[in-house]
């Protein structure tokens, strides 16, 4: 009963989404105010229906209704309650429902948040969002319905993939998708502005908080996925340049560019067409990400679904969305003109370089991700592209970006002179260089060529970001949230860069064959293997090793790495033991039994690795703070009075 109710609710939701799209786009276009006024009720109805569908599927998962195919394939009666709920997005069909639900949540948020905006404009935004919802609901109902019954019902389910039975991965998809889907809002604002034909900077100001919020969610989502890969996959790596990781990283890079170009459009009315294109591009890459992950075209740990018809459907959706948006852009492009000029060395030029470098980075990642597919389609052989390609090409655009960032945040709008900031900036550079040399050669006493470079750039960004807020605080000037948020995000980036440098430069790792009681030394640490014993969990059994860790002869920890075998799918997972000590992560993973009473064990010492995710988290917090700035809300209220002239921006206000 419940699954049918959910199915029916989703069909109703699709009808309401088409009404929302129709009224939202046709209402303002024909000037019928009744149609325009009908958009918000359609949004509310669509949300209620999608939420009902979601609730029905969750309830069926909780109730172990294995007559539903999707539940039978992804859950099991022995699965703990928490994972029975999160199993909803453990595979393709449920993930799509989650996508639709989150889009519906964003749409409601926009309907509430955009109530201050001109009615015609907000109706158009909601109309475009309705079109996107409609596309995804059609896709779900036509190719990937999670509510379909299995006849006859199965006695028990095939279980959730054991590597997905993990708290971080349970919440990773919703947060990542919230980010992905959030770029639909920026996209809808851009489309609405083009439909409206009013392409001055007002739309950019209205979009900024939404884009920044989506970006913050995406940052946390990517960081969670990376953290999960680190401790769950048993390799001890935090980034593999796996196609699925790239799929989420490309929208992030373009989204970062979009945030910065929106700043220039909002403040100075510059880069208007570029900003529109970036908004289209960010959402297109989110769709492409869904396509790459869910169509099964890629070799990847995440690609559980392998159904080409779905891929073709998403590809068609992609063509309609990108093609439609670009068509709209071509139609409206004659209206675009940037009046303002700027000098080389002004803040605008730094934002321009930021955009160029971020888009180049995204393009190189895209090329590396798609190359195997293209080569395969053209019968050029089966090839794979990995870290040896991605690392150098990515650094090539990132290193100049980091250096320009440290300088660019002090540049003034329009004028190209740094003025009295030059001396402070040089001072911070010297301090950063000294700190880098001390870190690389003092603390770790070795390093690669790029180690001091990375450490210096990271420290410089942090120090340089802090000059302005400290100055303002000492002079008792106001610190608006958008400015504080920008500062925090840039400090987070600095933390990220330093820790990434440390991990890449100073990681020690060894795979060792060990018998009970044997010792091995890795760096300053010594490990004693005390054998294994059997363990049993709620839906698995396995073995657990005992490893005693000492540092310079001082006992520091006893860790228990596990090897689990899950009963239903008979698959083995590695549960690495990770201890944080002196800022370093001590990582111990149990391999396999080698005979003669020996086990293979993997040891890694990764300095500052936790700060990689902390840095990403700080960046996201900065984004959240900036998105909550009152300026955007009051500005929206002011701008809704139809007048073209906006208050002149002050030079000190933040760009992020």
């Amino acid at each position, binding site marked *: 009963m419940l699954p049918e109710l959910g199915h029916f609710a989703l069909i109703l939701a699709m009808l309401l989404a088409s009404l929302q799209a129709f009224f939202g786009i046709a209402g303002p276009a024909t000037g019928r105010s009744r149609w325009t006024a009908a958009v918000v009720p359609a949004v509310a109805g669509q949300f209620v229906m999608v939420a009902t569908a979601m609730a029905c599927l969750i309830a069926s998962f909780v109730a172990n209704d294995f007559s539903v195919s999707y539940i039978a394939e992804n859950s099991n009666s022995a699965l703990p309650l928490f994972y029975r709920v999160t199993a909803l997005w453990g595979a393709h069909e449920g993930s799509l429902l989650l996508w639709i639900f989150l889009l519906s949540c964003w749409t409601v948020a926009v309907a509430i948040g955009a109530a201050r905006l001109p009615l015609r404009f907000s109706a158009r935004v909601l109309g475009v969002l309705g079109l996107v919802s409609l596309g995804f609901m059609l896709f779900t109902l036509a190719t990937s319905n999670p509510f379909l019954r299995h006849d006859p019902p199965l006695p028990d389910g095939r279980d959730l*993939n054991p590597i997905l039975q993990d708290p971080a991965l349970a919440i990773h998809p919703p947060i990542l998708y919230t980010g992905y889907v959030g770029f639909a809002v920026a996209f809808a604002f851009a489309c609405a502005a083009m439909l409206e034909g009013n392409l001055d900077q007002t739309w950019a100001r209205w979009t900024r908080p939404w884009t920044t919020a989506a970006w913050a969610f995406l940052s946390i989502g990517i960081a969670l996925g990376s953290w999960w890969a680190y401790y769950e996959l*048993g390799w001890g790596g935090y980034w593999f340049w796996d196609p699925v990781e790239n799929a989420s990283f490309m929208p992030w890079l373009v989204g970062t560019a979009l945030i910065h170009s929106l700043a220039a459009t909002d403040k100075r009315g510059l880069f208007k067409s570029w900003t529109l294109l970036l908004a289209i591009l960010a959402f297109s890459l989110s769709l492409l990400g869904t396509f790459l992950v869910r169509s*099964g*075209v890629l*070799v*990847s*740990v995440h*690609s*559980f*679904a*392998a*159904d*080409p018809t779905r891929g073709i459907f998403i590809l068609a959706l992609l063509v309609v969305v990108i093609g439609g948006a670009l068509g709209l852009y071509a139609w409206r492009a004659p209206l675009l003109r940037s009046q303002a*000029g700027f*000098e*080389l060395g002004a803040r605008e*030029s730094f934002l321009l370089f930021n955009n*160029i470098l971020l888009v*180049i980075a995204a393009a*190189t990642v895209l*090329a*590396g991700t798609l*190359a195997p597919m293209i080569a395969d389609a053209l019968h050029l*052989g*089966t*090839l*794979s*592209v*990995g870290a*040896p*390609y991605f690392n*150098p*090409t990515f650094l*090539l*655009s990132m290193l100049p970006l980091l250096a320009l960032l440290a300088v660019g945040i002090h540049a003034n709008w329009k004028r190209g002179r740094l003025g009295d900031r030059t001396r402070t900036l040089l001072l911070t550079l010297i301090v950063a260089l000294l700190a880098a040399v001390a870190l690389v050669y003092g603390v770790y006493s070795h390093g690669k060529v790029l180690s001091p470079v990375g450490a210096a750039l990271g420290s410089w960004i942090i120090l340089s970001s802090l000059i302005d807020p400290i100055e303002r605080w000492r002079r008792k000037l106001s610190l608006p949230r958008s400015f504080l948020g920008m500062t925090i995000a840039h400090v987070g980036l600095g933390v990220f860069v330093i820790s990434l440098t440390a991990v890449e430069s100073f990681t020690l790792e060894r*795979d*060792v*064959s060990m*018998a009970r009681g044997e010792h091995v030394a890795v760096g300053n640490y010594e490990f004693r293997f005390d054998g294994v014993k059997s363990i049993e969990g709620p839906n698995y059994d396995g073995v657990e090793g005992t490893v005693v860790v000492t540092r310079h002869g001082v006992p520091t920890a006893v860790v228990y790495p596990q090897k689990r075998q899950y009963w239903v*799918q*008979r*698959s*083995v*997972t*590695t549960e690495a033991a990770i201890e944080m000590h002196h800022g370093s992560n001590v990582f111990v*993973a149990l*391999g*396999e039994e*080698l*005979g*003669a*009473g*020996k086990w*293979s*064990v*993997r040891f890694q010492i990764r300095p500052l690795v936790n700060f990689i995710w902390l840095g990403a988290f700080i960046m996201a917090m900065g984004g959240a703070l900036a998105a909550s700035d009152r300026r955007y809300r009051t500005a929206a209220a002011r701008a809704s009075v139809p007048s073209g002239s906006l208050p002149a921006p002050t030079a000190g206000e933040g760009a992020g």
Partner: protein
Amino acid sequence: MTPRQRRMTLVAGILVGVSIAGALALSAFRKNVTFFFDPTQVAAGQVPAGERFRLGGMVTQGSVQRAPGSLEVRFVVTDFKNEVPVSYTGVLPDLFREGQGVVAHGRMLNGTFVADEVLAKHDEKYMPPEVARSLKRRHGSDQVHTAPPAAAAGGS
């Protein structure tokens, strides 16, 4: 400089930067791409000598051997037409098993494929798509017992 000249300089600078980045990315790409070969292609001598490549196929039943207590493991990768012996020192991935698909990175040395990385990154229900495809090419899909039709179709 007039504003127009300045703008043209900026545009030219950006173009030069973008082309340098493109050229470097292309050369990094050429140097660092690894190709996939199956045992029949290896036996036919299609792999350039000394080149690093990816070998994929099934782990032959009963072929996994190691000296007790040693990290070095030897096994045979097959596409049911030809076989390639593989040696690897290190911790094998969780999904590595006899009779299952595997992909290894490394190079040929005296008739043995010396792997520095062994991947079994696929879901247990599936085979690595390139392996499924290679087996299909050699035999037709009916011989691929361990892969469900969906996986084989999804890769093609």
